[in-house]
């Protein structure tokens, strides 16, 4: 994978990779560029996916610290039903 020269292109290519690699197929992750670091935000279905995404994104920003702020969505039973009358 080639490292884009500008952070904006790096973000775009990281996003494309997350969506288009069938082993990830994750859309809607947020890659937020901050001073000297990159924060990844979003919600995924497993810890394995969370770590894989962070690893892939980090490869696009070799000169930045990448912080993983992705959370795994809960799967409990809902406490109540919505009444639609």
């Amino acid at each position, binding site marked *: 994978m080639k490292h884009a020269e500008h952070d904006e292109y790096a973000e775009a290519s990281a996003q494309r990779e997350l969506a288009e690699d069938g082993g990830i197929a994750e859309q809607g992750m947020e890659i937020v560029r901050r001073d000297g670091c990159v924060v990844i935000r*979003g919600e995924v279905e497993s810890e394995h996916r969370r770590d894989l995404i962070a690893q892939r994104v980090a490869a696009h920003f070799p000169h930045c610290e990448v912080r993983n702020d992705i959370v795994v969505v809960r799967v409990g*039973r809902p406490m109540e039903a919505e009444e639609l009358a």
Partner: protein
Amino acid sequence: MIRIAAVGDVHMDVDLLGRYRPALLELPECADVLLLAGDLTRHGSRREAQCVAQEFGGLQVPVIAVLGNHDHHGDEPDQVVEVLAASGIQVLEGSGVVIGTPGGRLGVAGVKGFGGGFAGRCASAFGEPEMKSFVRTTEHSAERLSKSLQELECDLRVALTHYAPVPDTLVGEPLEIYPFLGSYLLGEAIDSAPADLAIHGHAHAGSERGVTPGGVRVRNVAHPVIKHAYSIFNLDHGAG
């Protein structure tokens, strides 16, 4: 009253097996049916479809689904449908089904749907062939949803799609991607029946509740939105 459980965007693969099962096994106590609003797999492979079948099949309530864009990525949606059907999960695409429940006959009509955007800010079937075919895909899908909703002989009618029929349930998503998240044509189809409730997924960062211009309640049940194994809607006659 008919009790409807629904969830979308579970994006199954082997790493998730067993994750939803404990909550699903409790379904018969609180729901008459489970609706799956598409993106059942990660990228539409047979292996992932088998995971969906294992996780969501063999429940004590009927399970009715539509596919999502992720289920199409492998270019073999028919194979996904076949694997799901073998486990008793019925997949709708331009079709409907009526199931008997203690609260009456529930009719569900479903399509995956497609994008295009919302009134005043939407794509038109104009210009390049790629653009026309994009918009016509949605038009065709909406026509089939309208027809299958109208053909249902039932007490309560639910529209099940993957793409969103209204912008209300997209709030939280970047405005720039709304045209990839849904189309007003689906909303128009839902109002044409009209349905008593519309369920969709796809917008992971969207919001839960909306309403069509005709007053039909819309619920986005994408898993990251509802943050539970499923939502439950108790739908009463005279709703909508």
